[in-house]
């Protein structure tokens, strides 16, 4: 006997419109999603707007009267997964590289600058803030300036609130660190204001907008470039390279590399796992 399972049909038209919207707004390609994933991701939004199908959602989008629907769809479709101290060893490396940089500059009091591009719900910049609060104490370097950006207003709003579930808080965060920097609140954990204040959150689209002003000593762009088309990825690498101060480091996700993606960066010799700009004049050879 064969059992047929009803898989909600996602029309090709809906798929096309929704993936075009996502790609236009973020550069992210939907090709890797299967239609059931699309359906699941958008289900809460359908429920909220009291509609049943993706075709109705598309109609709502094209109708143009609901000003926020486009943003909401994009936010539901991007992969926003994150966790505290994700790929833990890399945080040790970032700390080492930046302390060495502060010491080499001979200006201990000067604040380094870190850009966290694609910060999602804030676990990454908060991890940096906690890390550098410790390093400031132990090594005497000044607390760096941390600028965290994302294209998703929804993710940024959560990041600014500093509120995490018990489930989120215990993925990657040592209990003593959680106790030091978070308060318990009705089963959730809320980052203390002094921690959140160490970070400037801003909305920025990596693909279509200029980086935050000024040069950065480190740029983290982790698990963001994965689904970008190669040409768009190359453009993002270019703008990240421009935002990096001479001798600054680029940090990618654990499964990501610059090799074969761009000629602008190469693996750092001093800090394995981090990347640095290829010396000027070498770019063409490396590309």
């Amino acid at each position: 006997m064969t059992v047929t399972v009803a898989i909600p049909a996602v029309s090709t038209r809906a798929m096309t419109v929704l993936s075009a919207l996502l790609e236009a707004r973020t550069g992210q390609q939907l090709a890797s999603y299967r239609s059931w994933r699309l359906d699941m991701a958008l289900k809460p939004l359908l429920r909220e707007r009291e509609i049943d199908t993706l075709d109705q959602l598309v109609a709502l989008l094209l109708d143009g009267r609901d000003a926020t629907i486009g943003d909401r769809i994009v936010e539901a479709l991007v992969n926003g997964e994150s966790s505290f101290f994700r790929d833990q060893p890399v945080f040790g490396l970032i700390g080492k590289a930046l302390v060495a940089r502060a010491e080499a500059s001979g200006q201990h009091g000067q604040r380094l600058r870190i850009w966290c591009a694609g910060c999602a719900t804030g676990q990454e910049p908060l991890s940096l803030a906690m890390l550098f609060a410790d390093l400031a104490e132990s090594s005497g370097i000044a607390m760096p300036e941390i600028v965290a950006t994302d294209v998703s207003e929804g993710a940024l709003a959560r990041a600014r609130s500093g509120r995490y579930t018990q489930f989120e808080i215990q993925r990657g965060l040592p209990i003593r660190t959680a106790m030091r920097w978070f308060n318990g609140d009705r089963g959730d954990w809320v980052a203390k204001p002094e921690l959140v204040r160490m970070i400037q959150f801003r909305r920025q689209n990596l693909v279509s907008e200029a980086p935050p002003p000024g040069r950065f000593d480190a740029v983290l762009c982790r698990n963001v470039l994965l689904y970008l088309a190669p040409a768009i990825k190359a453009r993002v690498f270019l703008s990240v390279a421009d935002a990096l101060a001479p001798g600054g480091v680029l940090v990618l996700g654990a499964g990501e590399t610059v090799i074969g993606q761009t000629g602008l960066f190469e693996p750092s010799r001093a800090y394995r796992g981090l990347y640095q700009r290829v010396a000027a004049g070498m770019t063409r050879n490396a590309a």
Partner: protein
Amino acid sequence: MKTCLVVDDSKVIRKVARHILETLDFEVREACDGREALDSCLAAAPDVILLDWNMPVMSGMDFLLALKESEVASKPKVVFCTTESGMAYIRAAIEAGADEYVMKPFDRDTLESKLQIVGMA
């Protein structure tokens, strides 16, 4: 291979924990309460202990205090694993010498990350 002693009065929790720990390459032993756990530690100290709080006979907290006083040679790492999630409980556990703290329910990623934090995975 590292050894983990799972101490919990719930058979289901012990089974779930065992399953996760085995996929993380641990040799797993079980105890249903603090008393059994202490005996198990005196017989052979595990590398790490996953410890429930509320148990009959001897609670996790009493076990932890007894372990400190005991002759158990190499002190195992202790990860509390309990439904108690209040700050006061967590603070008490840390003061009593727990190395880490997991709030139930937990999944594989959580447990793995906590074991990494105590240097065991």
